[in-house]
């Protein structure tokens, strides 16, 4: 009598058992455009239909360049992207230069936090956007939970920009990343993902207007000696 043999892998595949070592397969994801990051994200990119939190202490470290390849891909596929409660004006000439199709972008300025949360929920529930970028300086767990439920109903990539202090608070977002400048690169720490924790931060090279030499930022057009220290009084 022969017992049909099955590989361990096949058995594990047949049963919906989540294994700690692997990454949960995300149903849908939009590749981030950074190969090193995509390898570490469940589904191989920014998850669609779920919240992603990006915690960032200050402006100008490349936080938008990090998500730009995915946004470009979305607008190329004629998907609409809403910029909700941005801290500054998204500057059209730079967005166009990055390859975004401007006709698929909409800026929504919300005067208050409650307006921003309300508008985010409307955008997600309408299901007419492929991407939502949302800036929330403060948000409670319950409010984020509401957004997460609304996000699950659709297939939009939802990127929530929050301050780094938010890392101390619980969040319903399945993916949380902390962004810090690291010389000319951007250090991305994965605080939370569906899968094993990643101890070391990823160092990503993102497009910057100046090149870097030896960890210091330097202009491509000028010799190093020309870096002036400018004190503004």
């Amino acid at each position, binding site marked *: 009598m022969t017992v049909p043999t099955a590989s361990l892998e096949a058995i594990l595949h047949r049963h919906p058992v989540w294994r700690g070592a692997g990454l949960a397969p995300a149903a849908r994801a939009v590749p981030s455009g950074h190969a090193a990051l995509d390898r570490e994200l469940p589904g191989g990119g920014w998850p669609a239909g779920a919240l992603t939190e990006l915690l960032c202490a*200050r*402006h*100008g*470290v*490349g*936080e*938008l*360049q990090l998500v730009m390849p995915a946004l470009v891909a979305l607008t190329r596929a004629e998907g*609409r992207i809403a910029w909700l409660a*941005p*801290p*500054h*004006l*998204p*500057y*059209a*000439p*730079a*967005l*166009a*230069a*990055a390859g975004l*199709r*401007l*006709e698929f*972008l*909409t*800026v*929504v*300025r*919300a*005067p208050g936090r409650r*307006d921003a949360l*309300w*508008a985010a929920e*409307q*955008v997600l529930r*309408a*299901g*007419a*956007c492929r991407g939502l970028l949302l800036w929330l300086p403060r948000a409670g767990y319950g409010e984020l939970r509401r957004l997460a439920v609304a996000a699950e109903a659709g297939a939009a990539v939802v990127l929530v920009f929050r301050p780094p202090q938010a890392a101390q608070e619980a969040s319903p977002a399945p993916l949380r990343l902390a962004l*810090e*400048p*690291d*010389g000319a690169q951007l250090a991305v720490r994965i605080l939370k993902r569906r899968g094993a924790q990643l101890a070391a931060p990823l160092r990503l090279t993102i497009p*910057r*207007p*100046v090149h870097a030499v030896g960890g210091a*930022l*330097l*202009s*491509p*057009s*000028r010799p190093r000696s020309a*870096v*002036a*220290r*400018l004190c*503004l*009084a």
Partner: protein
Amino acid sequence: MAAAWALAPGLRTLPRDAVAETRALEAIATWAGQFTPRVSLEPPHAVLLEAEGSLRLFGGAAGLMARLRSGLEELGFDALAAAGPTARAALWLARGGTQSLEALPVEAIDAAPETLELLQRIGIRTLGELMRLPRAGVAARFGPSLLAALDRASGAAPEPRTFFMPPERFSATLELPAPASEAERVLFAARRLLAQMEGFLAARQAGVRRFTLGLLHRGRPPTLLDIGFSAPRRDVEHCLRLLRERLDRLPLVCPAEAIRLEASGLAPLVDAAPGLFGDPRSEAEGWERLTERLQARLGEARVHGLATHPEHRPERAWRATPAGGAAGAAEAPPGSRPLWLLEPPRRLEEGDFAVLAGPERIESGWWDGEDVARDYFIAARGGSLAWIFRAREGWFLHGWFA
């Protein structure tokens, strides 16, 4: 009246308002234009629809009657509706409340009181019994007018009617039963006017691009709520949602005594048949509706698209476009531009920036009096890259390379 008061001491009486009655009839006639263009008024309390040509579209007489009944209820009227082969017959049936003309009580027909008294005395109770009397005898006893009315009801004699001409623009007012200061009560009343407007628009196969709801107060100018759409609309629920967003944010300073709905800017609205396998237009339409809702609550200027603009001054090199509108042709700027632009530039009082690249000189705008002469630099602070400039007034921060 005295008897009524004796029976119900708490009875409140209101004087009859003939103008309001006519207005109500016209409102119903305007709304009913969506079922047939041949609507006529029968003052003081009836509206007649010649609907033979529309029966198939609305699923037969029963289907049409059901639509009429539910629609009138939505408008806030308690109506008796009946269908008959002629206008007069339908009117009598609605009054008498019977299914057939045969069983209709004679009180329901247009006859003088003395005629009715005489009929009662000779034992004629229903229209059927009256019709079976010899014509010559009826004419001799009751005069020719009764016979003429009977002929019009049966269709033996024609009854030409003048049809109601609906107004060119929609305007309707509704008195509230009591002054309302809660959004919910105003919305409840507004639904009736919106339903009326929907009928008015359906009759023209049109939608509106803009409508105004006025809350009329006693001794104060009205509060006006102006709602605009990106495409023509007539859907009651959608209009109501937008009104709700607006009303929720509006502090009602004093209660509304009445509301008035006005619409202009009629545009043809083609009913799109839904596609079999999902409609690519439906996502675009969902988007339009979404921006309308966002604009209704946040304000129209707060929801916009982006476009580049050929202009050297950085703060003018972009344009806010109507939400969902098409953008202009993208044009590469000469130097590096930051993804975040600060509006307005922030004066740098203190802080240290390491200048990495520049200057890029921008000198422009002498023709409109807002000329700029600036040297732009890319500078680093901490790990952030900033776009700063030096002008006559000093140093300014204008953007972040995010």
